[in-house]
């Protein structure tokens, strides 16, 4: 987040879109959450969350399973309706179209070839003649252009998740929500994917919220880490370590330690 807008634009792989109908520059959407609460039946899952995410920030949300972190994300992208409070994504008129969600599973349509699956992410207003080209462009970003005409069933788990990432990015979203998208991958593929997500985020400058149970992943990728506990934000720490970050950096380790302490002290207090 240091480069000027101009030099960024020069690097954006999607910048050559004079013919594209999508207006405006690709900048992130700011997110504002006020008094957000959600109950399922009698179970409170979120109990009053206040949060502001500036445009273009990469936020990681961590917490134990069942703490409400996925619910928070689903509320932010509008997949659930809040029981109280509200979520504002930049200027609301465009928010829905410029928001993309990447799921824990790839959720590719098995009856569409890879390139057609990516094109699902394009706005219906994009003309048929440009759809394939734009989808191929996004596939090139994730390094899978040569698999464009394969069926999803022949890809590996990591490749499928990369196709899902291309589908999420093909419309150049201004807000990307990631719901543990790397959780099901093996350790090495996961590190590779983390690098890919970071590289694309650096180039495209969208606002990103990553829900994860992997504190190491949160520390490696995020500008800021939120720890959710019992439906509230229990800790909000900045990760002010310049990129590219090196694994095993002592500063990162210190932040990781702080997050872990918080996660487990809480448990200690509960017992």
């Amino acid at each position, binding site marked *: 987040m240091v480069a000027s807008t101009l030099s960024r634009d020069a690097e954006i792989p999607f910048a050559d879109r004079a013919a594209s109908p999508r207006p405006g520059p690709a900048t992130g959407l700011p997110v504002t959450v006020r008094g957000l609460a959600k109950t399922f039946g009698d179970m409170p899952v979120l109990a009053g969350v206040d949060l502001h995410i500036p445009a273009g920030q990469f936020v990681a949300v961590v917490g134990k399973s069942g703490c409400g972190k996925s619910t928070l994300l689903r509320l932010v*992208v509008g*997949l659930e309706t809040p029981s109280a409070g509200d979520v504002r994504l930049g200027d609301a008129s465009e928010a*829905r*179209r410029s928001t*993309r*969600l990447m*799921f824990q*599973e790839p*959720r590719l*349509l*098995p*009856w*569409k*070839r890879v390139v057609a699956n990516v094109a*699902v*992410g394009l*706005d*219906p207003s994009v003309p048929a003649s440009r759809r394939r080209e734009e989808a191929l462009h996004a596939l090139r970003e994730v390094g899978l252009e040569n698999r464009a005409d394969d*069926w*999803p*069933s*022949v890809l590996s788990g990591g490749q499928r998740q990369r196709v899902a990432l291309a*589908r999420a990015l093909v419309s150049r979203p201004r807000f990307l929500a990631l719901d543990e998208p790397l959780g099901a991958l093996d350790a090495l593929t996961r590190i590779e994917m983390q690098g890919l997500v970071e590289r694309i985020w650096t180039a495209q400058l969208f606002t990103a919220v990553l829900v994860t149970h992997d504190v190491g992943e949160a520390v490696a990728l995020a500008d800021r880490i939120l720890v959710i506990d019992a439906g509230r934000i229990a800790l909000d720490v900045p990760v002010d370590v310049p990129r590219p970050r090196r694994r095993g950096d002592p500063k990162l380790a210190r932040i990781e330690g702080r997050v872990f302490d918080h996660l487990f002290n809480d448990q200690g207090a509960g017992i």
Partner: protein
Amino acid sequence: MPAALVALWEVAARLGEIPPNVLPAPSGVVAAALRLARSGELAQNIGVSTLRALSGFAVGGGIGLALGLANGLSSLSEKLTDTTLQMIRNVPHLALIPLVILWFGIDEEAKLFLVALGVFFPIYINTLHGIRSVDPQLVEMGRVYGMSEARLFGEVILPGALPSIFVGLRYALGIMWLTLIVAETISASSGIGYMAMQAREFLLVDVVVLSILIYALLGKLADSVARLLERLSLRWHPAYQFR
């Protein structure tokens, strides 16, 4: 192996081991086929039977598909019709033959009605099941990615239900021929079944055997066409991939 069996059958028939009034030699059946083909009777009867089968299938299958889709997509439609349909399903459709003859006589409508009723249920049930078993995660993905209801149906729900619809289709094709055979042998004035029944009265065993073989071939043909369609439209499915 099948060729050897036919050869054995031919030899046994020529040696008189199988009396001709029980089972004629294969060459006799072929001769009967040629005789009937030359008189035009064969082509006409096959044409009549095929037309009956296909029109009954189109009517019954079309209604089954439409109701299956409607009940799979709308819970209101399902509440209104599903219980009734499940009750009717328990009546064997061939048991209705006396009633159908009273209603329609032995005209075309009777056969069309029976075939349509027979193919309706396998198509209906498998379409409904197919739509119910579409992965809800994919449907959610479609919604999140801004698909309209029409696109969601065309790109997610229908392709997801297709493997199951094909199961229903192939099952229905079997029932289609079975129903037609029964209907034509009981009451008809044309068609393969009628040809067989008439031959029986004149003790033309070769024509009876020929009719049975034609039914078998038509059934096999219908199944092969269905398999081909299935293979073409389910190319994405790991079970149908050849490369």
